């Protein structure tokens, strides 16, 4: 089921100041795809999710889920949370401590007043799906973090909602379990093929799970696109910086060529992937460390930067390396078996198509 959001605004008052948690959000979430809201804490992503589920009421705008308008200021429509028929996994999981696994998962079905036999069958099926077969009578206080997460998922799925919402569901797990659970979740959601709205501040989660990512900042959706579009072809400095490690160098356009855009920067003239901007846009050159190569490679489409290795830190899979180019420190990566040393003079190569110009 698709979700349409129009002109959504939500204000908070805190210590006499007005905070625009949502500052006019327009958004279309495609049906049967995984959509991720990514952004730093306080950007409004959780508020947006809570507005969709109905736990917060917006100040202005309209929310439509499928064919039903669930909230509209103008039309005076408010469908309460319990009538929206959604599934949700909370950040804290919100597993009820006084109930066992069965009752936690069966709760949505019990509220639908289904016959007992059907409830039991559907709970068993869902628990099997999340690989918690035989956990029915386990007290929910005796579950590990990963198991709680799966019970929360089972509870959100059991009523077969058309939309499922996730509020930072992996942030309470430790690093290793988070990675495993993320992969599991991708499998589950892939198998189900339902509309999922996923809120996170973790860029790896967003990249790995999503069909579409919406990057949010200060109550706005800054950019919308596939993971690759966001990573390789961001339009804004905020997005380019948030989605991965980046060297950001102020740049000014000197010439719009046929294939490239030429810019001038503190590290010298650079040819970039062709892009056009409004004349008064302040521009920033974004160079990702993973696209910087060492050693001179000739070619029309390659930029060369001469510098000195100022620092190398061995972190296992690579050396995190900093190269001083005309007084600017450029982050780069070196193979762990490299023969380069700190203090070496080096030439860096960056392909023009991987030199991304973004607006500030």
């Amino acid at each position, binding site marked *: 089921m698709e979700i349409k959001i129009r002109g959504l605004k939500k204000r908070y008052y805190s210590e006499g100041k007005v905070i625009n948690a949502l500052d006019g959000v327009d958004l279309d979430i495609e049906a049967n795809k995984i959509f991720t809201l990514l952004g730093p804490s306080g950007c409004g992503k959780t508020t947006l999710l809570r507005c969709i589920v*109905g736990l917060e009421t917006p100040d202005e705008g309209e929310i439509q889920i499928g064919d039903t308008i669930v909230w509209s200021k103008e039309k005076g429509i408010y469908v309460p949370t319990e009538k929206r028929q959604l599934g949700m996994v909370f950040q804290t999981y*919100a597993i*009820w401590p006084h109930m066992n696994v069965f009752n936690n998962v069966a709760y949505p079905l019990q509220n639908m007043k289904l016959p007992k036999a059907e409830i039991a069958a559907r709970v068993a099926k869902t628990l099997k799906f999340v690989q918690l077969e035989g956990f029915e009578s386990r007290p929910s206080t005796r579950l590990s973090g990963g198991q709680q997460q799966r019970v929360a998922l089972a509870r959100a799925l059991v009523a077969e909602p058309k939309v499922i919402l996730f509020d930072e569901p992996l942030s309470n797990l430790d690093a290793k379990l988070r990675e495993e659970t993320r992969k599991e979740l991708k499998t589950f959601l892939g198998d189900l093929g339902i509309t999922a709205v996923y809120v996170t501040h973790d860029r790896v989660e967003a990249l790995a799970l999503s069909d579409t990512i919406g990057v949010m900042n200060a109550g706005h959706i800054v950019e919308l696109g596939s993971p690759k579009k966001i990573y390789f072809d961001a339009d804004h400095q905020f997005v380019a910086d948030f989605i991965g490690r980046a060297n950001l160098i102020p740049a000014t356009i000197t010439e719009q060529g046929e294939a490239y855009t030429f810019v001038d920067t503190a590290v010298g003239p650079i040819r970039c992937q062709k892009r056009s901007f409004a004349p008064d846009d302040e521009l920033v050159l974004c160079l990702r460390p993973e696209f910087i190569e060492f050693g001179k490679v000739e070619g029309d489409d390659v930029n060369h930067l001469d510098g000195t290795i100022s620092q190398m830190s061995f972190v296992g899979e690579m050396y995190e390396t900093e190269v001083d180019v005309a007084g600017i420190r450029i982050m780069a990566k070196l193979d762990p078996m490299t023969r380069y040393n700190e203090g070496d003079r080096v030439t860096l190569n960056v392909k023009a198509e991987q030199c991304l110009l973004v607006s500030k």
Partner: protein
Amino acid sequence: MLKRERNLTYALIVLVSLLTVAPVLMLVMGSFSNSLHSFGNFTLKKYIAVYTDPMLFSVLGNTAIFVVGSAAFATILALFLAYLNTRTDIPFKFLFKVLSVMPMMIPHVLFGVSWALLLNPSNGILNMWLMRAFSLSSAPFNIYSLPGMVLVEGLLDMPIAYLIIAPAMGSFDASLEESSRVFKSGPVKTLMRITLPILRPAIMAAFILCIVRALASFGVPSVLGMPGRVYVLSTFIYRVITVSLIADYGKAAAIGMSILVISVGLIYVYRYFTRASDKFVTVSSRGFKPSVVQLRKGKIPLFIILLLISFILIVLPVLVLLYTSLVPYVMVPGKQAFAAMSLQNWRVVIKDPISLRSLKNSLFLCLVGATVGTFLSVLVAYVIVKIKSKASGFLESISFLSFSFPGIVIGIGFMWYFVRTPIYATIWALFFSYVATYLPYGIRPMTSAFVQIHGSLEESSLVCGASFATTMRRIVIPLLVPGIVSSWVLLATMFFRELSLSAVLSRPGTEVLAIQILRFSEDGQWGRLSALGLIMIAISIIMVAGVNILGARFKPGEVREKLVKVESQPLKATS
């Protein structure tokens, strides 16, 4: 704030004000009045009478020695036990838990009586035995004295100090000590230079709270102080309203005002130290265990000391009462005593109309009072935790008002209050004063229960399609049950053994158990006292155990934990 919530808040403010603010106001006005029946004519006569009373000087001296002595004794003993439990490898650690809940089971007045039975100068069992064994001409110990009162009150208040000191000692970051060890300080020097200074705020908080408790204490001063004519402020008030020919409630109110001022002052000092203690003691989230000191050779002797303290606090009082209840008059245990044993005292007590009436009254106050008190606590805690507004903050402060007031003082306030109402001298006078005075003990467990219900637990129920009513029935109320159980048990046990309010407000026909015990003690009816006391202890234990078993069906283990915590820190919520 919704209209419904606002109405609830204001209704509770009015109700709680009537219960807690009104008696204090009446106490203040009473202290400036001539007598119960000439209320409101401003006079300083009563204050002048108090401060020119020739007895006052010795009473103040006694009070100072009594409260500081017993608080110091309790704190040092608690420090010792807390150290043993949290920092050493002493065996049988469950004994510490038993020690810390002991005072919930045995009423203070009975604990005092059992020591009087052992060590009173005329026929104390231990005294008589020592006199016979060493052919002494007079009793070697006299419990009817200041040192005796300090000893017994100190033992009774030890758990309060323990429950503040032990968590602080158990939770602090071992690396603070380890770094001292690294810099070449020995274990003793580390204890003196690092551990104790860091714990100082917690220790001071425990000490001050013990002083407040001792100042409010009426059981020990009445059972052990009055027979030897050693008066402290609480018994001085009691003397003014009972022993003198005409009960002088104006003078009692004037003394009460002085205690109130000291008490409130001490509570401020206490809060200062608890805040400092929260700031100071670094509870490590990474689950550091403080380093455990190997006791080696000291293990056995220290364990014997622990056993001895447990014996004195738990077994001895019950044993003494049991023995005394079976013998016709106080005698040294031996062949003669065993031959004379009978159930005569028990038979008399269960046929004694006043004892039966006091049992009936206490049971009524305990069961109905605790139920009403818990219900009120649920509402007040809901407003305090879930509705955050200026009005709910005000409700919180007036609800905790009575915590800092000694029962006998607040009782005088209620006297001035109720004498103007039809409930004077009825069981309802006791009922309302109990609920009002012990309200903080009911609210505390409920606020922590409400705090535990994280908002997302309710929200996820809504997302799952449950209505507001279903969410209440299936999520919120079941999660509150442990809090309700602890509130109820705490109030019920306190109401069942209530002494100091009842000492002022109880009238013929509205006797309660603790008052009847006091009467038996004043008349030297030790056998009947012991029989009635044992009935009292047995009912308390059955009640606590029964409700705990019931509550454990919902959340095993947690209820008991909370009972322990609640007694220790009821004040934090007021800050």
